């Protein structure tokens, strides 16, 4: 949350010679972050970001307190004056009655005082200017006092028209669902129930405390008497009501962070003082104060050992004490057996955010200055164990190879739309979906990457060259009562009818990953209904399913308005990683030359190359290598290597092996072309 602080206003309390640049710089280094300093008519305005745990800084005096502790660290003398407060004494003269009740203890503290003789009018120029620099509109002197107090002291304040509270009664209660209010801006709100409201005793709501005033009780141009009212609110309820109703006033944003109830009294006394100065009014009632549980100071203990260890630098106790004292803490130092202990008493202002020794460490460290700490790479004595599944090397290798083979990597979003699922004939019910999606297209957590990449092809329809893309990402398979199974999938899409070329890429990739023995199997066309039933293969190795490679069904591809055919590889990268290895094997280089010859066969039947090669290889032990060399219509030519590791082969030995090959193939009706005499 941000606050705009006027430099001149700050200087009314902060006595220092520091320039605005210095104040901005040093505050940012050790405390709140000054995002910008703007020059405004002989003044400077700091735009300061304050973290949600330090609502105590959201004021002139809050920043003043920080500066008072920080600037001396940079050798700048600084002191902080206190604001002029009214005295807390019973007024002389007529007492105006007011009854304030909080029977259910909905607020931590409730304060009220009646002011009489209010001369309503514009505020003095200085007050108006200061409020404007803070970003608050000046309305009239009565309302301005509440905003001035909030900005200066840091506690929101409110002012009622005393005479409009006809019952002279204010009762804090919880709202019932459906109750309505009209805010001071004239807007009607329906409460959801549980909101803290002020009832005038007749059931009528006359305020939404801590958030916004209501039209029926606020100050008007006719106001002569006011009730100055400050309550310390329950931060959770304030946030709930404020967010649900959508009313985000400055007061609400402060109150939902939990402002110090002790500060409420200071704010009231300051308010009274200003009311007297600005409106000429006088106090017409004692100060009503409902404070069931006043702040009991708490102690947080820490040690010199802990502080020096956490900072990573030697620092003496006196320095620590000085820092903490400057921040408003009370410090008792105890030494026992060479151990120095600090007992730190926490002021009410810091009660919410200082609870554990680490909080004290932060206070010391930031004022000492993080810039004064050394910079040391943490020493390494022992390497932690790597996780079992360490696929990163295989990922890197895979992506680099695909890049070198001309593929472009994509990163598509995790979500798919119902339309995309339907276009790929997937069932939305079998997917996890978001309860609170951002748009209607990003709803389902994908179980298959392909639709996302088909959409990429669609997006790039205008491209002239062949599109070759790949992606390695997770898919999410729903599991009952468990987190979804996150599987890593590698998908390659090639917008061309290049089955064998893509198959070659897959074979080469798997080979580089150490997976050399592959089997290609026909697919079950019911299970893989998005793929061409015949031009698709399941890739297997060591009995495991590595994935699919094939032509996507043209009708599916057309659903994505793509006209060209698409071949795809969809691989299970987890399984591939589990089989991937860098194992090296060495086969001694044969001493004797191999006999290499080409044999051409007439393949009239529909036999797979895989099968034929297997038959040839198994025909005779001398056959060491078989490669498909050429295809021309129904003739397939194989390059066959015959080798004996111990000697050079004679022609008759090769003939013997060749005859076996021809015979074995003849048994499945595959004949040697040219009809060699056996």
């Amino acid at each position, binding site marked *: 949350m941000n606050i705009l602080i006027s430099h001149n206003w700050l200087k009314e309390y902060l006595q220092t010679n520091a320039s605005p640049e210095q104040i901005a710089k040093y505050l940012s280094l050790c405390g709140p972050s000054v995002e910008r300093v703007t020059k405004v008519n002989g003044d400077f305005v700091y735009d300061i970001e304050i973290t949600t745990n330090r609502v105590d800084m959201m004021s002139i005096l809050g920043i003043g307190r920080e500066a008072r502790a920080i600037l001396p660290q940079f050798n700048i003398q600084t002191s902080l004056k206190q604001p002029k407060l009214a005295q807390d004494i019973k007024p002389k003269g007529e007492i105006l009655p007011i009854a304030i009740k909080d029977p259910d203890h909905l607020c931590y503290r409730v304060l009220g005082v009646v002011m009489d003789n209010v001369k309503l009018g514009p505020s003095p120029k200085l007050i108006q200017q200061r409020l404007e620099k803070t970003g608050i509109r000046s309305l009239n002197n009565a309302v301005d006092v509440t905003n001035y107090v909030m900005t200066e002291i840091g506690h929101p304040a409110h002012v009622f028209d005393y005479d409009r509270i006809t019952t002279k009664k204010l009762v804090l209660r919880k709202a019932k669902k459906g109750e309505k209010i009209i805010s001071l801006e004239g807007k009607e709100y329906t409460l959801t129930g549980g909101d803290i409201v002020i009832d005038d005793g007749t059931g009528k709501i006359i305020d939404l405390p801590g958030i916004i005033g209501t039209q029926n009780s606020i100050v008007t141009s006719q106001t002569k008497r006011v009730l100055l009212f400050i309550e310390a609110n329950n931060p959770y309820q304030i946030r709930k009501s404020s967010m649900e109703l959508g009313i985000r006033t400055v007061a609400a944003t402060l109150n939902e962070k939990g402002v110090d109830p002790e500060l409420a009294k200071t704010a009231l006394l300051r308010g009274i003082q200003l009311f007297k100065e600005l409106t000429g009014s006088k106090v017409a009632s004692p100060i009503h104060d409902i404070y069931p549980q006043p702040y009991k100071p708490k102690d947080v203990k820490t040690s010199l050992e802990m502080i020096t260890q956490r900072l990573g630098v030697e620092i003496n106790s006196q320095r620590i004490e000085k820092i903490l004292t400057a921040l408003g803490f009370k410090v008792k130092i105890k030494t026992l057996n060479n151990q120095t202990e600090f007992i730190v008493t926490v002021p009410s202002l810091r009660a919410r955010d200082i609870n554990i020794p680490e909080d004290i460490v932060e206070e010391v460290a930031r004022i000492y200055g993080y810039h004064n700490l050394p910079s*040391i790479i943490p020493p390494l004595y022992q390497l932690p164990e790597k996780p079992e599944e360490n696929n990163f090397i295989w990922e890197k290798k895979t992506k680099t190879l695909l890049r070198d083979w001309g593929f472009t990597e994509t990163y598509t979003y995790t979500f798919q739309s119902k339309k995309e699922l339907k276009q790929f004939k997937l069932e939305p019910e079998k997917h996890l979906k978001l309860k609170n*999606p951002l748009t209607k297209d990003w709803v389902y957590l994908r179980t298959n990457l392909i639709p996302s990449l088909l959409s990429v092809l669609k997006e790039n329809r205008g491209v002239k060259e062949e599109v070759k893309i790949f992606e390695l990402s997770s898919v999410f398979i729903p599991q009952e009562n468990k987190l979804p199974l996150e599987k890593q999938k590698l998908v390659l899409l090639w917008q061309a009818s290049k089955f064998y070329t893509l198959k070659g890429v897959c074979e080469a990739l798997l080979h580089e990953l150490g997976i050399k023995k592959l089997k290609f199997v026909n697919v079950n066309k019911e299970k893989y209904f998005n793929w061409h039933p015949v031009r698709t293969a399941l890739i297997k190795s060591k009995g495991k399913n590595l994935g699919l490679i094939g032509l996507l069904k043209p009708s599916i591809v057309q659903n994505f308005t793509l006209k060209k055919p698409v071949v795809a590889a969809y691989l299970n990268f987890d399984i591939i990683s589990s089989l991937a290895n860098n194992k090296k094997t060495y086969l001694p280089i044969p001493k004797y030359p191999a006999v290499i010859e080409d044999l051409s066969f007439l393949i009239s039947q529909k036999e797979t190359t895989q099968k034929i090669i297997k038959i040839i290889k198994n025909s005779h032990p001398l056959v060491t290598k078989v490669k498909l060399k050429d295809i021309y219509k129904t003739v397939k030519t194989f390059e066959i290597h015959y080798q004996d590791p111990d000697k050079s082969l004679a022609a008759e030995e090769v003939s013997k092996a060749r005859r076996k090959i021809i015979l074995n193939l003849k048994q499945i009706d595959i004949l040697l072309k040219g009809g060699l005499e056996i």
Partner: protein
Amino acid sequence: MEELHNFKNEALALITEAKSKQELEDLKVKFLGRKGEVNKFLQNLTQLPPEEKKRFGQLLNQTKQALEQAIARKESSLVSQQETKLDWFDITRPGKKPPQGNLHLITQAIEEISTIFEKIGFIRVRYPEVEWDWYAFESLNMPKDHPARDEWETFFVDTQENKKWGKMVLTPHTSSGQIREMQRLKKPPIRMVNIAKCHRRQHDVTHTVMFHQFEGLVVDKNISIAHLKGTTDYFASQFYGPQRKTRLRPFNFKFTEPSFEIDINCPLCLGKGCRTCKSGWHELGGAGMVHPNVLKAVNIDPEKYSGFAFGWGVERSYLMKEDLKIDDLRTIYSNDLRFLKQF
């Protein structure tokens, strides 16, 4: 004898006039091959009377040597001729490039980041993108009403809540990885960098609904703020350049105490302040000393051990480094080939 003499002269002449390597090779086979001319003469040798045999043999040997030398000389002269071939040659014509694909910017960024940390002993890990509330928030000391846990900022999965672990969410930060890693190792030393996808319910010029973060965590005995500084300074100098360093400023996170915002010095003025950067520093991301409640949630004793953690955006950090003027973060995930093919 005379025949041999004539043969030698003819052969030498032919060799000298050979115009190509192939021609020379053919001549070599013709004269010196197994079935070549010289060997034919050798066969005739056996038919000669003894005194003539010796003389003929010597002459034949000389002839053979002369031919071999001539061939060798002609071979090298042909080679050097080739070197000084002076026909016009267009050296500017585009070469035939091998296939060139592209690795996504994010992949390149992640690779660079993980290598930097691996060099100082950090182990790379990756943890689920779909997580339980307990891992994403509860164990990280975030109270139930923290804004990050409400439906405006985080994506919730439409499924039954788990009695022990709470609602199912898409993790908005890699910090859930801290808990997972500490549970895996059970006790220090812990030294990890978790780089993974995160999702948040915001999509505009500076936010994408899906993005990547890298999260570092070191837990051991006597880990201090100085160690966090050392690590971030090391990263800055490796990733951004030798004169780049970081600074820590106070901030507030629920899962760290103290918490910091980390800045990096401006590449142009190195921290002094200039027109481009104004303050001299650019925001990098958040960090802090691990909150004792977080250690307790995974049964690590905060009295014995301490640690630091930091979590930064991959996209943001990388764009700052390369000075890539990509104005709209959503461009990174656009998948337009005209964008992808630039890297």
